[in-house]
């Protein structure tokens, strides 16, 4: 028997496989394909205080081994989530982890305050790394003082674990990680998408309505893996690894680099059953390698 349980800064997950915000809706979109109860957790679509319509179409461009998106946090607002969506998903036997966003610190705080009172919500992901909004979003995550400010402010009103989602679009991601650790983050998740761009040579126009967007998929995996390894060596809080994970081997690599859990993102678009396949694959790897506790994989890189 392999014990697949992991702990992310006080949040217990039945296994290290979760789904990344913005790639898995609110989970309901996948119930025809998989048993949501089998997942370690679901990081649900990014939430803001008020309804947001997101950016104009086109919001997506396929790239070599990946894709760009410029959705821009389309969502119906935190109250709609709490009152209408959450009651329909709260009874699944998996952690539902809201991903929260704001254009100013006060918005993050107000959203976090509302979630603090929701029974069954045991953690939140603080998104300071969305590259697709004009105000806030990634702006908070690319400077140390603002990353610290928003984390400290949310820390004051949210009593459960806070996982801060970091942007890779920085000079030194370990500085930001250390900053939010000092500000009270219980864990960090990384990486969000890389700022990228696609051009149609025939029309000489950008493909995305926003000109730039966030790059995801296997194209970014080696960079994400490097950043997870660097951050793991720089902070004491757990790291959740994200970035182009397509299969169990990718997930195990992230754990060896230092991730305590992982998020499956863009791969959900290619195979809606991939998250469950990754859980099975990790279990099989552990069995084949006589590993009884999956958590011992974390940071197991042999140098």
């Amino acid at each position, binding site marked *: 028997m392999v014990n697949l349980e992991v702990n992310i800064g006080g949040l217990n997950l039945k296994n290290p496989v979760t789904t990344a915000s*913005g*790639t*898995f*809706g609110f989970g309901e*979109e*996948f119930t*025809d*394909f998989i048993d949501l109860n089998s997942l370690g957790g679901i990081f649900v*679509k990014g939430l803001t205080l008020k*309804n947001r*319509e*997101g950016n*104009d*179409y*086109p*919001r*997506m461009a*396929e*790239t*070599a*081994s*990946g*894709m760009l*998106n410029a*959705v821009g946090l*389309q969502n119906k607002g935190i109250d709609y989530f709490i009152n209408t969506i959450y009651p329909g998903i709260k009874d699944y036997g998996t952690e539902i982890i809201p991903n929260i966003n704001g254009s100013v610190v006060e918005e993050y705080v107000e959203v976090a305050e509302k979630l603090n009172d929701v029974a069954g919500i045991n953690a939140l992901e603080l998104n300071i790394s969305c590259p697709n909004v004009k105000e806030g979003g990634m702006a908070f995550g690319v400077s140390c003082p603002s990353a610290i400010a928003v984390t400290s402010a949310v820390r004051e009103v949210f009593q459960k674990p806070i996982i801060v989602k970091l942007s890779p679009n920085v000079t030194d991601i370990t500085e930001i990680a250390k900053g939010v650790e000092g500000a009270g983050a219980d864990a960090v998740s990384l990486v969000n998408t890389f700022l990228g761009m696609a051009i149609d040579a025939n029309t000489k126009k950008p493909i995305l309505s926003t000109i730039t967007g966030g790059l995801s*998929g296997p194209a970014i995996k080696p960079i994400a893996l490097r950043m997870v390894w660097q951050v793991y060596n720089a902070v004491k809080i757990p790291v959740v690894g994200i970035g182009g994970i397509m299969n169990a081997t990718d997930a195990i690599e992230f754990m060896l680099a230092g991730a305590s859990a992982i998020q499956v993102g*863009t791969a*959900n*678009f*290619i*195979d*809606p*059953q991939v998250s469950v396949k990754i859980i099975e694959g990790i279990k099989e790897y552990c069995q084949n390698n006589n590993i009884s506790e999956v958590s011992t994989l974390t940071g197991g890189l042999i140098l």
Partner: protein
Amino acid sequence: MKQVQDFSVVDYHRLNADNYILTLSSDASIENVNPGNFAEIKIPDAPEVFLRRPISILEVDQKAKTIRFYIKAIGKGTKKLGNLAIGSSVNIVYPLGNSFTILRQKRVLIVGGGSGIAPFIMLASKLKKENTDVTFLLGARTKNDIFLTDEFSNYGEVLITTEDGSLGEKGLVTQHSVFSNNFDFNHIYTCGPDPMMKAVAKIANDKSISCEASLENMMACGIGACLCCVTPTINGNQCVCTEGPVFNTKDLQW
């Protein structure tokens, strides 16, 4: 229920250099499919094609366990999909999206432009069962771009326009005489290029009849998770993959 299912290639029917009908078969049973539904097809052995391709479903045959797609090879995905060996395995996610309203005992006009004809054979077959009288209006650049007229004619009169006049009336579909003569249709279904559908929707609006259009936005997931394929509607941005692809044109803010 939506499924991820393995099929194998049983036949290509080549319509011309760029257009083909792909028939896939499965060992497992075929899900119920409604007119307008589409599938997300994984292009096999093509690492350069990262995402699945959303393709409208032409027809399914539950007994033969086959599913057919009409495909115009315009990009690397649809080109690759047109050149697989017979017997190749193809993984699809289906049936996705909503479907056209099936009207009973009405007179309807179905307007298809270019490759936007795929959903209309299944639609016409369902309409015929409901004693609805169907007329097709197909438009393309030349006669070489008009396909499946034999299949359409099983279900109703087929009117044609070509931009060069090589078949049917010369001009755009919206210039066809059917719109100026004794126009007595109750409803229009349309699928094709956006400018054509917008023009058709305007005619429907001017004539105070309802119109449904099937949109073809670029998609990633096809199941309402990524929110990439949105179109603006009176109810905000909606996903073409789940709230569509079929929309009442009155709801669209093109």
